[in-house]
């Protein structure tokens, strides 16, 4: 018999986008904590070693390390560019389009924490990328959504809308990289496991 996936028959998957802290259950066996090598621990730096998601990804430690460092640079490097709340907004918008409830929960929550605009963020989750937003958030959401389409629909009009909303080219690079990164993250999160309700629900 070949290896078998892990199923979670008792899990009731969340059926709506939420800002709550969800859990995530893997479909493949994460690397056991006691089996982690020094290389693995280096690759897990800045991540929770008890996270089943990162202990699954650490099965390719060099790629996980590169991915984590890229993630942190895109979302937290404040040397100019897009304000951090809008980077999280772009991540949440890409996740909303791809349908990743788990990723959308993490990054909508981060967008709310950084911006204080819980209701605006919730409208993105509830009504999707066509939700009513101000000019700046509309420009970011539409650019992230266009870049998330396959093939990409990102066009000069999106650049023009971002500029008209007051964003410079450095900020536009951040919009591009934030949305692009979540086309990486969403596909891993969606395809290697499933979201589960918050603990205590």
């Amino acid at each position: 018999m070949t290896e078998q996936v892990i199923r979670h028959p008792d899990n009731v998957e969340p059926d709506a986008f939420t800002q709550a802290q969800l859990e995530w259950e893997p479909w493949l066996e994460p690397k056991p904590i006691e089996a982690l090598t020094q290389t693995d621990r280096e690759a897990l730096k800045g991540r929770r070693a008890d996270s089943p998601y990162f202990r699954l990804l650490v099965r390719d430690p060099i790629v996980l390390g590169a991915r984590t460092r890229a993630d942190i640079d895109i979302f937290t490097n404040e040397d100019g560019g897009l304000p951090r709340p809008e980077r999280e907004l772009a991540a949440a918008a890409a996740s909303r389009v791809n349908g990743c409830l788990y990723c959308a929960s993490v990054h909508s929550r981060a967008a709310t924490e950084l911006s204080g605009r819980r209701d605006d963020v919730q409208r993105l989750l509830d009504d999707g990328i066509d939700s009513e937003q101000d000019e700046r958030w509309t420009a970011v959401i539409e650019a992230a959504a266009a870049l998330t389409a396959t093939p990409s629909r990102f066009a000069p009009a999106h650049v023009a809308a971002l500029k008209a909303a007051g964003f410079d080219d450095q900020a536009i690079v951040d919009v591009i990289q934030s949305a692009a990164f979540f086309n990486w993250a969403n596909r891993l999160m969606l395809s290697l496991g499933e979201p589960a309700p918050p603990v205590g629900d």
Partner: protein
Amino acid sequence: MSDLIDELVGIAPGDHLDTLRAKRPIVRRDAQASYEELIVSPSDLDRASAAERAAIGYWVAALSQAAALAGHYRSLLASLDPAVLDALVTAIPEATTTGPYGAYPPGPLSVEDEDGLHWTAPASLHSAVGDRLAAALEHTHLLTFRPRDSNPKALQALLDAGWTTDGIVTISQLVAFIHFQLRVIAGLTVLKEAN
């Protein structure tokens, strides 16, 4: 040091986009490092061979109609396994669609469910590339166009076709990373032309 994104967008040292990218030096370096470890010079070829990686890379970029990147992976695959490349080129038209689409868990989001192509490798492709790579190409199609349809059965199909758990993590990263790579290229190309 060569950088594939710079090369395909057409960014030269000192260009406006070079200056912008230089402000995010770690993502620039680690995008290239991911590409090298996943495709150009992987440290472990047992979990996925060089030709399998190039084939999956070409398949993602071609399905996504990312012309410059597809051309790059096409050349790489041509140098590693021209017969596989021919089989993929033949299969592309029937596999290509637009996304993302798929279904949510039954509930309030079901109104957003959208059906689309559920591509399976034709018998001719199975015989040209083998069942193991064919299974990976089907999974790549799922991740490319309808990632929210992912389910444990899809991973079981990979295990049954001979992929190990480590191998599945690596090819999942490969597919997902190229979706990042092709969008950075698409976005920067538009930004370059807009300036």
